[in-house]
């Protein structure tokens, strides 16, 4: 009987070193020879260096004698000579080696025992090779406590096909233990000869026995990214597997089905886009598409590749939609698109619903808590995703897009129409106000205690004119749970050295009370250490004064609205209301996050463009005496942050704020952080320092409660990073610490799967939840149904729905019906979809506008004009002023169903009601005009708005520019472009390439060299030149018979690579010179 056996994957030592985890030394211990043999072979397959023994005692002896000979131990739990746990304990005591336990017994108790004894992992028999391919991570974890880039490299290594090296395959033969490898190959020869002799014919004759076994590639996140990047680079029509493979440049990667599937999916999206357009009844797909999407539509045409064009628009829409709390513009579009491509669609309605439910009066605290949690997740996601987006996005966001979205957001919270106007005003002052509220914190704690309400807001003011990017900000101080007294008065250091001036502005509460705070910025830095105020304000700027008049109050919360469902005097209800509020707010962001998620998934741009997204969290304990009892007070944290519209340094600002807060927290070790504080802190860390730091922080948390509380934000990090592997590992880890009983983490991971198109896994998660009696909430069901639609078919969707109906824990609301409607629409059953929407209508209550707007967009997507009109009229029953965003939604929907007249009428009623002139509302109409080719009408509207004192944003100029290009009024187009650019010089917005090329083409055709020259010069300033533009320029010279001057130099100066055609053009142009 063999006691110890050693085999290794044969890899030259040198290679082994740089190809971690190849050659990792594993000691496998199991008394069961069958298991051991399989395990050994599996490990060898992973190219580890394997030593096996069937006795724990021998294993221990070996380990003691040669401490440095092993990197990892895998041990069975039940062994006759020594219990696996004992071995585990001894190894843990004597040497610092990761030990993985292995057992057929998966009872929680046993697993827990393994973990408490120090096992780094607990695998169940039968072990799968995929599990073993990952075990090297435990070694890394041990070795590098601080995670750095190296990990990534390792990670990539790990994903290499284990058999990539054919040497290795043969190595098995030579290196294998003699009794095994020798014999089998001989045997095989015998078979061969037998076969030959007898001339037997088999079913097997297809197989070439000598063909080496194909190495397998695990489709990792990394590969996926590469793949997506490659597809993007090529553009969807050119993305043939071969080219993709070339671009990806991954060894041993072949054209697997996966790619094809993925491509199919992509092209489905692309074609869907077109078909939607067509479905929308446009003569010109381009136009209609745009019309459909509203303002953002324009953005969609920025990029030439279908895929990429998709992305920006989706993203764009998202922030916007949200605010309206009904994602009107974006939603229908993206929805229909999504319908085809995946279950993403679901997410909006779902989330919304989820939240919506929460805000309903009848709901219990628990629900509220849930909703909050979910919504939190969304929020973060959204932000994260946005961050990941590229310039396109940032363009939008940093421009009005951002403020739009944000203000919308605010509105949806406050249900007051004023904010946009506020915005407009600010714009005038060259300040864009960007209110960002952020609720932070989640977790069951909320549900249980219902004590914590956190809403973060940060007030910042930045003057655009100031040369200093961060001229200042005022931040709410962190109120820390349980320690809301003086400790909290702290100083946040100045973030920008050069900007001294800061004066405390009125604190928020005062502002609220007085319904109008005046913030002034003055000279020297002044810290308002008044603890009672609980604020720190950093004013900044060059004597800029910003006043908020009474109207500010309007733009805040409309107490009636939110509180209507809740008796305001009760504490509990206060909390509930808060949740409701945050939900509402989050709703908005959740839409975008979902859309964003998938957009990114497909268009992946990993650039980490910074979005100005400010966030500070402050926690308010509801028991806090400082907490105003009056709900309306509570609800009106002033959500104003202003920053220069041009400031892309906003992120820097945010970061510095958070850093200051963090370092302040560090320097005040004297007060104890509660679990929720840890949670918030982890969020902040993740935001500012990245996930790895957050992981580090998480690892250092000592108490289980803290870990539990902090786990959600960390999971969230993984989800936002779309790191499936980490999220799954983490989830498994969480489960070992005790199953999360709330559905949020599960929802989170399902969202991740949806975002990564792994719908089957969603089904598995649902199954898992069922098995473990984890309650599912509305969101879970909605995701589930979408996944069903994606994976199987209507029947499974219906059975999921049935299950939902039978689940007492959830109330089927409009979001679910909207989800169903989308699914039916996807399956082409419009009548059923409409029926669902009808039912959804019955579920609406007049406490919020979100549902109305949402269903309205669904009707719009189904091209049901009556439905749109009905919902719009019905939504007027919701008390309170109608926010501008809702007007916009209605207009977009009406335009989409082809009723521009009614849209104009709606615009008129908005104008009549509003005191300010939010250019975004008129942009909707402007876009519709332009897309219909009514440039005169568009110009008239534009002038009208100018007269009214509205301030065009870059979008306005972009729309007009497009209109002028269409009508061949190139001078005006160039002017519009210049105005757009001058508005946002330092920002990332850039005019769409198509338009630029169209203009250049026009000049070329006209042979107007001067114009073309001037045009190029303008573009040069903004680094917008490109090869096609230069070609047009040359063409203009050629057409005008003029010899160009130093164009090659200009091209070189702009660092543009020449191609053949260009060379020929230059020759052609200079030939004229010769002749």
């Amino acid at each position, binding site marked *: 009987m063999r006691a110890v056996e050693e085999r290794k994957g044969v890899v030259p030592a040198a290679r082994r070193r740089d190809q971690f985890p190849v050659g990792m030394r594993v000691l496998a211990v199991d008394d*069961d020879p069958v298991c051991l043999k399989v395990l050994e*072979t599996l490990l060898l*397959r992973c190219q580890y260096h394997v030593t096996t023994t069937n006795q724990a005692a021998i294993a221990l002896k070996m380990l003691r004698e040669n401490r440095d000979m092993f990197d990892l131990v895998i041990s069975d739990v*039940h062994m006759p000579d020594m219990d696996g746990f004992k071995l585990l304990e001894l190894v843990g005591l004597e040497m610092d080696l990761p030990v993985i336990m292995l057992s*057929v017994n998966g009872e929680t108790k046993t697993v827990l025992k393994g973990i408490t004894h120090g096992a780094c992992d607990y695998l*169940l028999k039968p072990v799968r090779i995929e599990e073993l391919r990952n075990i090297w991570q435990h070694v890394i974890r041990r070795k590098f406590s601080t995670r750095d880039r190296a990990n990534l490299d390792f990670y990539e290594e790990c994903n290499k096909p284990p058999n990539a090296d054919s040497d290795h395959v043969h190595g098995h033969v030579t290196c294998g233990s003699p009794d095994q490898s020798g014999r089998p190959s001989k045997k095989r020869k015998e078979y061969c000869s037998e076969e030959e002799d007898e001339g037997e014919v088999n079913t*097997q004759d297809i197989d070439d*026995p000598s063909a080496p*076994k194909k190495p397998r590639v695990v489709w990792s996140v990394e590969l996926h990214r590469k793949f997506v990047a490659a597809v993007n680079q090529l553009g969807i029509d050119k993305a043939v597997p071969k080219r993709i493979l070339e671009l990806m440049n991954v060894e041993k990667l072949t054209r697997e089905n996966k790619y094809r599937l993925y491509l199919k999916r992509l092209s489905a999206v692309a074609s869907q886009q077109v078909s939607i357009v067509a479905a929308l009844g446009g003569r010109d797909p381009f136009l209609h598409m745009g019309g459909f999407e509203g303002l953002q539509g324009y953005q969609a045409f920025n990029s030439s590749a279908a895929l990429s064009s998709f992305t920006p628009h989706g993203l764009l829409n998202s922030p916007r939609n949200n605010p309206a709390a009904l994602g009107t513009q974006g939603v229908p579009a993206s929805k229909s698109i999504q319908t085809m491509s995946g279950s993403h669609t679901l997410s909006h309605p779902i989330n919304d619903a989820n939240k919506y439910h929460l805000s309903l009066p009848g709901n219990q605290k628990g629900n509220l808590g849930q909703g909050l949690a979910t919504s939190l997740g969304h929020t973060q996601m959204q932000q994260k995703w946005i961050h990941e987006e590229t310039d396109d996005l940032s363009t939008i966001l940093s421009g009005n897009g951002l403020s739009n979205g944000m203000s919308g957001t605010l509105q949806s919270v406050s249900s007051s129409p004023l904010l946009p106007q506020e915005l407009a005003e600010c714009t005038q002052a060259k300040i864009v106000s960007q209110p960002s509220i952020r609720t932070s914190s989640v977790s069951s704690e909320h549900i249980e205690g219902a004590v914590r309400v956190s809403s973060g807001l940060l007030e910042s003011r930045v003057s655009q004119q100031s040369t200093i990017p961060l001229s200042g900000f005022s931040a709410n101080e962190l109120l820390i749970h349980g320690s809301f007294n003086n400790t909290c008065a702290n100083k946040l250091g100045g973030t920008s050295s050069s900007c001294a001036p800061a004066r405390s502005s009125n604190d928020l509460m005062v502002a609220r009370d007085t319904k109008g705070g005046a913030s002034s910025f003055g000279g020297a830095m002044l810290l308002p250490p008044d603890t009672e105020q609980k604020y720190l304000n950093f004013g900044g700027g060059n004597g800029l004064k910003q006043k908020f008049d009474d109207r500010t109050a309007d733009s805040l919360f409309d107490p009636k609205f939110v509180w209507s469902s809740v008796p305001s005097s009760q504490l509990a209800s206060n909390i509930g209301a808060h949740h409701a509020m945050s939900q509402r707010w989050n709703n908005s962001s959740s839409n975008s996050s979902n859309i964003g998620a998938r957009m990114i998934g497909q268009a992946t741009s990993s650039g980490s463009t910074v979005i100005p997204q400010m966030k500070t969290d402050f926690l308010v304990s509801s028991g806090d005496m400082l907490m105003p009892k009056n709900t309306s007070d509570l609800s009106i944290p002033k959500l104003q942050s202003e920053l220069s519209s041009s400031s892309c340094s906003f992120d820097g600002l945010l970061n510095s704020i958070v850093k200051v807060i963090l370092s302040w927290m560090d320097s005040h070790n004297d007060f104890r952080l509660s679990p929720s504080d840890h949670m918030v802190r982890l969020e902040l860390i993740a935001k500012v320092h990245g996930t790895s730091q957050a992981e580090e922080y998480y690892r250092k948390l000592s108490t289980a409660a803290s870990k539990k509380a902090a786990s959600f934000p960390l999971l969230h990090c993984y989800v936002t990073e779309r790191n499936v592997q980490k999220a799954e590992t983490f989830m498994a880890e969480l489960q070992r610490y005790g199953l999360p009983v709330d559905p949020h983490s599960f929802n989170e991971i399902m969202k991740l799967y949806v975002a990564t198109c792994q719908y089957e896994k969603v089904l*598995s998660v649902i199954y898992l939840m069922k098995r473990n009696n984890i309650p599912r909430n509305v969101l879970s069901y909605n995701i589930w149904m979408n996944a069903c639609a994606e994976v199987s078919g209507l029947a499974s969707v219906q059975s999921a729905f049935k299950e939902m109906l039978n689940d007492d824990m959830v109330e089927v609301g409009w979001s679910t019906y909207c989800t169903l409607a989308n699914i039916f629409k996807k399956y082409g059953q419009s009548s059923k979809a409409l029926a669902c929407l009808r039912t959804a209508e019955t579920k609406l209550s007049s406490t919020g506008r979100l549902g109305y707007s949402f269903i309205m967009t669904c009707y719009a997507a189904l091209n049901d004009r009556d439905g749109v009109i009905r919902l719009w009229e019905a939504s007027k029953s919701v008390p309170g002023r109608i926010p501008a965003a809702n007007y916009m939604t209605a207009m977009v929907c009406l335009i989409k169903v082809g009723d521009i007249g009614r849209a104009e009428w709606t615009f008129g009623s908005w104008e009549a009601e509003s005191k300010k002139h939010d250019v975004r509302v008129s942009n909707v109409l402007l876009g519709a005009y332009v897309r219909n080719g009514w440039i005169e009408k568009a110009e008239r509207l534009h002038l009208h708005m100018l007269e009214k004192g509205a301030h065009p944003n870059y979008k306005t100029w972009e729309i007009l520019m497009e209109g002028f290009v269409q009508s061949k009024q190139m001078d005006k187009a160039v002017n519009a472009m210049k105005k757009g650019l001058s508005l946002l010089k330092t920002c990332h917005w850039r005019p769409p390439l198509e338009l630029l090329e169209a203009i250049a083409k026009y000049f070329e055709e006209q042979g107007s060299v001067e114009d073309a020259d001037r045009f190029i010069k303008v573009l040069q300033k903004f680094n917008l030149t490109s090869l096609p533009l230069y070609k047009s320029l040359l063409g203009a010279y050629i057409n005008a018979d003029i010899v160009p001057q130093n164009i090659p130099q200009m091209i070189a100066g702009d660092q543009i690579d020449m191609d053949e055609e260009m060379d020929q053009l230059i020759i052609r142009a200079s030939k004229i010179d010769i002749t």
Partner: protein
Amino acid sequence: MTYCSHSMMCVETMWKWLHHAMASPSYVIYATAGVGFDARTKEFKVDYLDEQFCQVEDLQDEANPNFAEEVVSLFFKDSARVMLNIEQAIEKYPKDFARWDAHMQQLKGSCSSIGASRVKNECTSFRNFCGEENAEGCTRSFQKVKREHAVLRQKLESYFQLLRQAGPSGTATRPAGK
């Protein structure tokens, strides 16, 4: 959906399964077509074995062309021993359920390693009877284990026989390109 077939899995396995199952080629083959080159073997595999067996077969390669058969014969050799132990334990230590269970756990481990799903399921029910301290159930279940074991042995023997006739590469190694 296939997840239903995994009802025996506990949470952790489930996660692992989630993690890996979809990516596993043997899973794909298992889920889509069955592994066999012939209807008979296919049917038999689906009935008596699970995807772990596919994994074991997947482990065969140039260097190890008969890995599956070797493991299987090792399994039968070892499981016969373990079953003898169980038999003796049932006789010698009546109602010593912990002891029975420990033995059976070992058998179950072996079964799961080669993917002998039916025997494994029977082992599980044996262990459940142990948990209920139901000696009679245990004895009955053990008889079933033996029966399943014998059936599987016979089936696998003919399966490998068939493979051998089919040729050196057999189904054992996954046909390239699939």
